[in-house]
C-alpha cells in the first residue's frame, strides 16, 4: 500500500506484491489532506483514505504488509498582492462612471447650475442642470422645459437618481443626461462642464479625446496637457461628464511598492516591484538558485514578504527567522478599485503585482508521523523514496511514455517538476504558484470577493441564462430546461459546477470572465511549466526532454493541460496529461510509484540471491 500525502490531497494505492516483485494493482483512493503536509495532523486523513482504498479492493487492514509513505518535506507557499497604481481625482473634474441607462445622445457644453437655481438663470446662458437627491423626474423635466422656454439653453443634465430616460422623455428638446451620480451634491457649481452620451453600443468620442476636451473648453496646450489623463480614463465609456475646475486634476500615480531583494547562491540583486512581473522574473533568473528573498522594510513588498513569512512560521512552527524563501513567482495583475475622489462610485483597474513564495522546511516531523501512523494502522510504515523519484516511477506507468521523461505536478500551492534521463540522476524543482494562485487572480481581477465563486469559475465552463428555460454555453451551444431557472439567474453568467448551475454576481460578460480565467491559468501554469522544465532539463534545454507527463489536481482542469501542451509544442516533445497505470488519469502517481519502487527493490533483491 503506497500513500502520498500532498499539500491538499492524500492518495493511496493498493497492490499485491509477490515475493519476487511481481505485482498486481488492486485499487486507489483519495481524500483531503488533514493538516499541514508532513505533520502528525495527517494521520486522520491517511487513515480515512487507506480505509477507503482497502474496502474498494475488498481487503482488510490486517492483510496489509507495509504502508509506504513518501518522504514529504513540506513545501509551503504563500501569496500576497499589492496594487502599484492608484487613480485619484482631486476636486471633481470628471464623472467617469458608466450608468446602465443614461439618457439622450450627444454632447452638451455649459455652466453647471443647481436644478433649484435654474429659475434664476438669465436667458441666453448655456447651462448644465445638476439635479440632486430627491429631485423628482417630472419636476426636473418641467423645470428644464420652463427654463428653455425662457431662453436659457439647457444643454445637458447630471442627476442623482436613475432617471435619465424619464427626464429626457419629458423634454421638449432632448439633451444628454448622465444619471446615478451618487455624490451629485459635490459636483462643483458655476463651472464650465460638458456632458456626453453615445448611442447604445457606441462609446463617447469627444470627452475621451484630449483635443476634444480642449476644443470644448478652449484650452491652451498647457491646460490640455493637464486634462489628458481625464480623457484617457474616459476611453470606453458610453457616457461621461467633464467639469473644468481651476485646480482639479486626475492622476494615475504609481505607488512606490518597494524593492525586492533576491539572494541567490552566488549573487544578490534588487528589483523594484513596480517594474512588473517580467522584470522580477528576469532578475530571479539571474540569481538562481534562490536561497532567500527579502523586502525593503516599510514598503509594500516588505509587508508582503513579512505576511508570507508569518504564515509560514505559523504553519510550520518554525522560528520566523529560519524561514527561507526558495522560489518566487511574480504575476502582473490588476484590481478593480474605487477611485479616490470619484463622484459616482467610479472604479478604476489598478495595476498590481501578485507574489507567490515557496518555503521548503526541514523534514523534521516525518519519523513522528510514521510512528503515529503505525500506532493507528497496525501495519509496518516505511518512509519511502524521494517524492520526485516516486512520482516519476508512477508517471512512467502512463501508456506511451519512456525516458527521458519529465513530470509536471500541478498542485494547489506549488508546481513541481522532475526529470529522469536514461540513467542519470533525477533532478527536481518546486516552484511557487499553482492552482490557488489562479483562484486568487480570478477572485481579485473580477472583484468577486468570494474564493468559492472563483474556484468554481476556475474549474467549470461558463454559460449565460438567456431565458427562464435555456442557457447558452460559452462555446455557443444552447441547453434547455423543463423547469424554469430562478429569477436571480436570469440574464446572468452562471458556472456549470458539478453541484448545479451557480449564478455569478457580477456585471462582467461571459467573454470577459473567460478571458480572465484563461489568462490567469496562462500567467501561472504556462509560465511555471516552462520555468520548471527549463530547470530540470539537461543543460536547461527543453528539447532534450522526450516526454512530459502532466500530473496533479490542476491537471484535471479542462483547459490547463491543453495550454501547456500548446506552449511546449514548439520544442518537439510529447506532452500530455498522465494516465497513471492506464486508469488513474493524472492522479495517484506518487502512491503508485511507492508501490512500484518497493516491488522493484524486492525483485532486485530476489535476483541478487
Amino acid at each position: 500500500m503506497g500513500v502520498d500525502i500532498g499539500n491538499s490531497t492524500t492518495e493511496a494505492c493498493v497492490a499485491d506484491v509477490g515475493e519476487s516483485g511481481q505485482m498486481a494493482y488492486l485499487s486507489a483512493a483519495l481524500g483531503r489532506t488533514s493538516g499541514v503536509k508532513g505533520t502528525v495532523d495527517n494521520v486522520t486523513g491517511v487513515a480515512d483514505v487507506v480505509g477507503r482504498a482497502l474496502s474498494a479492493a475488498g481487503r482488510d487492514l490486517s492483510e496489509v504488509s507495509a504502508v509506504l509513505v513518501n518522504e514529504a518535506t513540506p513545501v509551503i507557499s504563500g501569496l500576497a498582492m499589492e496594487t502599484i497604481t492608484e487613480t485619484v481625482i482631486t476636486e471633481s473634474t470628471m464623472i467617469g462612471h458608466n450608468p446602465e441607462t443614461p439618457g439622450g445622445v450627444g454632447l452638451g457644453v455649459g455652466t453647471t447650475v443647481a436644478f433649484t437655481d435654474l429659475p434664476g438663470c438669465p436667458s441666453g446662458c448655456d447651462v448644465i442642470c445638476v439635479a440632486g437627491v430627491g429631485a423628482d423626474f417630472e419636476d426636473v423635466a418641467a423645470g428644464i422645459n420652463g427654463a428653455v422656454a425662457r431662453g436659457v439653453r439647457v444643454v445637458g443634465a447630471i442627476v442623482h437618481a436613475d432617471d435619465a430616460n424619464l427626464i429626457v422623455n419629458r423634454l421638449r428638446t432632448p439633451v444628454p443626461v448622465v444619471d446615478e451620480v451618487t455624490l451629485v451634491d459635490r459636483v462643483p457649481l458655476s463651472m464650465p462642464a460638458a456632458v456626453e452620451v453615445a448611442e447604445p453600443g457606441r462609446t463617447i468620442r469627444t470627452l475621451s479625446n484630449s483635443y476634444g476636451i480642449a476644443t470644448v473648453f478652449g484650452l491652451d496646450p498647457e491646460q490640455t496637457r493637464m486634462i489628458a489623463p481625464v480623457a484617457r480614463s474616459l476611453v470606453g465609456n458610453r457616457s461621461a461628464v467633464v467639469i473644468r475646475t481651476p485646480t482639479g486634476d486626475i492622476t494615475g500615480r504609481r505607488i512606490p511598492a518597494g524593492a525586492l531583494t533576491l539572494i541567490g547562491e552566488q549573487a544578490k540583486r534588487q528589483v523594484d516591484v513596480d517594474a512588473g512581473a517580467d522584470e522580477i522574473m528576469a532578475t530571479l533568473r539571474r540569481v538562481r538558485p534562490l536561497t532567500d528573498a527579502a523586502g525593503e522594510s516599510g514598503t509594500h513588498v516588505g509587508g508582503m514578504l513579512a505576511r508570507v513569512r508569518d504564515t509560514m512560521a505559523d504553519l510550520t512552527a518554525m522560528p520566523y527567522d529560519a524561514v527561507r524563501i526558495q522560489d518566487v513567482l511574480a504575476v502582473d495583475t490588476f484590481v478593480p478599485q474605487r477611485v479616490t475622489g470619484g463622484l459616482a462610485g467610479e472604479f478604476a483597474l489598478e495595476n498590481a503585482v501578485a507574489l507567490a513564495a515557496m518555503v521548503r522546511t526541514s523534514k523534521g516531523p516525518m519519523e513522528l508521523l510514521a510512528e503515529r501512523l503505525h500506532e493507528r494502522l497496525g501495519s509496518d510504515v516505511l518512509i519511502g523514496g524521494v517524492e520526485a523519484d516516486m512520482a516519476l516511477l508512477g508517471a512512467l506507468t502512463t501508456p506511451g511514455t519512456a525516458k527521458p521523461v519529465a513530470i509536471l505536478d500541478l498542485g494547489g500551492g506549488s508546481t513541481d517538476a522532475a526529470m529522469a534521463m536514461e540513467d542519470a540522476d533525477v533532478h527536481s524543482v518546486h516552484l511557487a504558484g499553482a492552482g490557488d494562485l489562479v483562484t486568487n487572480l480570478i477572485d481579485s481581477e473580477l472583484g468577486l470577493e468570494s474564493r468559492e465563486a472563483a474556484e468554481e469559475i476556475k474549474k467549470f465552463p461558463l454559460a449565460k441564462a438567456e431565458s427562464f428555460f435555456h442557457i447558452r454555453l460559452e462555446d455557443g451551444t444552447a441547453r434547455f430546461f423543463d423547469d424554469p431557472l430562478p429569477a436571480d439567474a436570469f440574464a446572468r453568467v452562471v458556472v456549470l459546477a458539478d453541484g448545479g448551475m451557480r449564478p455569478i454576481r457580477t456585471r462582467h460578460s461571459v467573454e470577459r470572465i473567460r478571458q480572465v480565467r484563461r489568462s490567469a491559468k496562462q500567467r501561472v501554469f504556462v509560465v511555471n511549466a516552462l520555468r520548471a522544465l527549463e530547470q530540470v532539463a539537461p543543460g536547461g534545454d527543453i528539447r532534450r526532454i522526450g516526454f512530459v507527463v502532466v500530473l496533479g489536481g490542476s491537471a484535471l482542469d479542462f483547459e490547463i493541460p491543453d495550454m501547456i501542451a500548446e506552449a511546449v509544442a514548439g520544442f518537439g516533445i510529447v506532452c500530455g496529461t498522465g494516465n497513471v497505470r492506464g486508469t488513474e488519469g493524472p492522479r495517484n502517481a506518487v502512491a503508485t510509484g511507492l508501490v512500484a519502487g518497493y516491488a522493484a527493490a524486492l525483485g532486485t533483491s530476489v535476483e541478487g540471491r
Partner: protein
Amino acid sequence: MTPVIAVMVWCDPGLRSRRCMRDLTAGIEEEGVPYHLESGTGGSVELAYAAAQASGLGVGVGVDADGNVCVHHAKLPSDMPAVTGPASAARIIGHNAARLVVGVPLKQPDL
C-alpha cells in the same frame, strides 16, 4: 390578433396609491421598454400571469388592490411568478419587469 409589443401592466381598480403605479411605470420607462396599462380585478399573481399571456413581449405585471406587485413571464408556470414585492418596491420591480424583456440581470435593491 397580433399581441401588443409592450409589457402589460394590469392593475386592480381598487388600488388607491397613485404613487405605486407611477413608480412601477417609471422603472419600466427608464429601461426603455414600452408598457401598456389596463385594469382588471384579482390577485397580483393572477393579474400578472394573465397580463403576461396578453403581452407580445411575454412579460406582464399585476398590481392588486393593496399595492402588491407581481411580475410574470408567459412561459413560467402560473404559480411561479418571476418577481413579487410590496408597493414600496414598485420602482425597482418596474426596472426588473423591463429587464426581463431587455435580457439584462435584474437590479438588486440598494442595501
